[in-house]
């Protein structure tokens, strides 16, 4: 049965979760940013935003994480496994686009062999999403098959129905168990159909035109043209909830060290450079093409899923004003009215 959660009960919701041993994460003001971050109490929760500046991915795939530790003594090495990386937590107030990035990324982190750091965090963390009641011009979830109140990837979905009231829907068994364990926090729904406050996100391009065009246009002037202003900073890849490329490096002292997995990005020149200096993707145009191809062609062929959730963070953060949905609009237009390739 549908439940209600009143804003005034956020406090008891968060304290009950903490009482059950959950770490609590929610959108929180950090100077002029809104960040998903650990909170101690409900008073820290910020809800007056379109989307958090950081994506949800860092709670499952941190910017930097130990994959093993070791001790070195003369020529002997002893390896130690990292412990305690999967902390039981609830992420409260993430957006549906962020939540959907998780089942999308499950595919690559479980391809053939599973990355236990991802998998165990996925098991430990429960996602309570709040549907978007507003959007901005960068949002394009509806163009990639999602919606501002999409449920995939969330364990519980809250939708605002008035300034101080949310309707609660459980999506998964994990979500159901969470709600069950919190009796008293949620209220029963009165009868009648609630008036859900959900943003209207304009559809910007026809996604079904994109892949067929990409299949045919690995070589096309648009790749260079569009990326001429790109400065290769890679910020787009770091804020993206579905960019998952990483580097593995060692950090150590003389006697002990860690092997560390760090976020990396396809927009960096060094990303693909061979030892010899040869670089398969030596220009920014090639690197930009890789980003688009990976998201809208390669990942689709491998895993039957687009590697983009339409959150628009990459475009919001780009210092050169590169806009991924503009790129996709160009592609969709080219697909309908082919221009000159060269």
């Amino acid at each position, binding site marked *: 049965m549908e439940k209600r959660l009143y804003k005034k009960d956020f406090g008891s919701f968060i304290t009950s979760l903490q009482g059950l041993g959950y770490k609590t994460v929610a959108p929180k003001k950090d100077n002029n940013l809104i960040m998903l971050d650990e909170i101690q109490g409900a008073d820290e929760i910020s809800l007056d935003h379109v989307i958090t500046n950081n994506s949800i991915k860092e709670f499952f795939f941190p910017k930097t994480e130990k994959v093993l530790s070791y001790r*070195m003594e003369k020529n002997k090495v002893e390896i130690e496994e990292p412990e305690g990386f999967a902390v039981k937590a609830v992420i409260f107030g993430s957006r549906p686009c962020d939540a959907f990035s998780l089942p999308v990324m499950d595919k690559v982190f479980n391809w053939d062999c599973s990355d236990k750091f991802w998998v165990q965090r996925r098991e430990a963390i429960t996602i309570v999403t709040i549907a978007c009641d507003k959007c901005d011009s960068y949002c394009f979830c509806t163009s990639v098959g999602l919606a501002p109140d999409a449920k995939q990837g969330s364990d519980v979905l809250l939708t605002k129905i008035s300034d101080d009231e949310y309707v609660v829907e459980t999506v998964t068994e994990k979500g159901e168990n969470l709600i069950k364990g919190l009796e008293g926090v949620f209220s029963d729904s009165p009868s009648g159909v609630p008036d859900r406050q959900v943003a209207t996100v304009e559809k910007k391009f026809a996604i079904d035109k994109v892949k067929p065009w990409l299949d045919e246009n690995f070589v096309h002037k648009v790749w260079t043209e569009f990326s001429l202003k790109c400065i290769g900073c890679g910020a787009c890849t770091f804020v993206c909830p579905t960019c998952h490329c990483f580097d593995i490096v060692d950090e150590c002292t003389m006697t002990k*060290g860690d*092997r560390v997995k760090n976020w990396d990005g396809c927009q960096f020149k060094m*990303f693909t450079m061979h*030892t010899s200096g040869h670089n398969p993707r030596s220009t920014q145009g090639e690197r930009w093409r890789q980003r688009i191809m990976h998201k809208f062609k390669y990942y689709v062929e491998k895993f039957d899923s687009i590697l983009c959730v339409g959150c628009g963070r990459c475009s919001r953060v780009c210092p050169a004003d590169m806009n991924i949905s503009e790129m996709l609009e160009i592609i969709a237009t080219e697909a309908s009215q082919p221009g000159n390739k060269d």
Partner: protein
Amino acid sequence: MDNIYRPYLMNISDMVDEAPGVKTFRLNFSNEDEGKKFQFQAGQFALYSVFGYGECTFCIASSPTRKEYIECTFRQAGRVTNALRELNIGDTLGFRGPYGNVFPIEEWEGKNLVFIAGGIALPPLRCVIWNCLDLRDKFKDVTIIYGAKTVADLVYKHELKEWDARDDVNLVTTVDPGGETPDWTGKVGFVPTVVEQAEPSSSNTIAIVCGPPIMIKFTLPVLEKLGFKQDKVYTTLENRMKCGLGKCGRCNIGCTYVCKEGPVFTAEEISKMPDEF
């Protein structure tokens, strides 16, 4: 759940200086049980690590027919390979693998084999060459064409002598013009030219090519001219890799992940990939 980033620990039991900056290590598993269980096939690669410096990717250069050890050959170039070079016999290093697909050696039985390698790309073929030579009866003529910049840069000099001395191996060595010494008896010229001159018959023959991208680029058309069908020409690609497991996202050529779907490809498969080498 296993940690897919955890390497085996291995100890260096022997080392050879092959060429300036190029070394071969013989490695044994620190844990004998792990060594007994370990299996690989020709063509596969691994991530080797020096603790405190990081990991680097190269092929397994020894043959799976020789089970007691693994050998790797590397050129000192970056942070990790410089650190590798500083290691001594008895030292411990990390080994993560084997990864990737394999050369379909069983399919080649009853055929002639032509191996073509350039420079530091002989190590990935050495694995297959010894694998096939250890099963010599199963194959017909074996030709090895190997070139390097200079005489000093040829790797596995002792094995080249051994192959040269064998009646059942036809070895052609070459160095780039200017790389010869006064007593050099091999050929002088670039690998694609030497292959054209050597004219290996394409009839019932498999060609296995490995070298720098530029060498592969010019050798494939030569093989085509000699009548080799694209599906009878094999190569092994190397792209920058960090995980070796299809997750870190950098080794792809178009939709193909070299670490998982490769590193072994036929020329036919490569011809269908976008030009992103």
